[in-house]
């Protein structure tokens, strides 16, 4: 075996040894059950159930439609009031 091959083999052996060390030392850990449970509860309280978000969407559309209808009614009433005032104004001027 040449000296270059020996060097490569020694390096591979060292890396293999290092991998074994890392494998032995880096072990998966288990989080505390109290932490996992309390976080689950906090997350589930924060999360809205599906029907709430659907309800929110329907609610938003209803409010939007009601707002537009109210606006149209108010504008119509104001327009009618204005027209009535103008007509009655003209009539009173004509009578004089």
């Amino acid at each position, binding site marked *: 075996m040449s000296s270059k091959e020996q060097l490569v083999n020694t390096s591979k052996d060292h890396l293999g040894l290092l991998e074994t060390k890392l494998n032995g030392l*880096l072990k998966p850990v288990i989080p505390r059950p109290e932490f996992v449970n309390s976080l*689950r509860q906090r*997350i589930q309280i*924060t999360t*809205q159930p599906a029907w709430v978000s659907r309800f929110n969407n329907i609610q938003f559309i209803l409010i939007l439609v009601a707002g537009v209808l109210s606006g149209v009614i108010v504008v119509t009433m104001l327009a009618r009031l204005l027209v009535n005032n103008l007509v009655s104004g003209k009539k009173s001027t004509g009578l004089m």
Partner: protein
Amino acid sequence: MPDLDESEILAKASQGDRDAFGFLYERYVERIFNYVYYRTGNVHDAEDITARVFYRALHHIHNYHDRGVPFSAWLYRIAHNLVANWHRDRSRKQEIPLTEVPTIKYKGDAPEQSVVHIEERENLLQLIQELTPDRQNLLILKFIEHMSNAEIGQIMGRSEGAVKSLYHRTLHSLREEIGDELTEE
């Protein structure tokens, strides 16, 4: 819920289904905790950051779109960003020892607890935590999560070949740092 495909669970979770998100939480909480624990080196910060990872995921799950990147990779990226912020904030504040002896349980066989092994473990953890974040991620995902180079590549946004090359460079760099301390038992 366990019968459903992950993409179906994700769709439900993004519509606000609490059971669906709870299921995803159960599936990934341990993996994210492990990742954060080995990146921060202490239990308290690992718990705090893990909680923030899931809160952030909960509030942004509607932004997650499966474009070949698995949900786990998306979670790991959130965790990676939060750990990076933690390191940045920590460098501005007081120094806390990196190798706090963990009051934590190990899954399966625990590392050897003799004085020599504890010291060796702490030295090695110290060396790992001095590596660049990419190299730390790689070692954690490989040795703790036992992921393949392809899976690690998806999380790190690198090709399989790039991960393999980075892995070898990392081992060589660690080997040089350790020097003669690395002995066969």
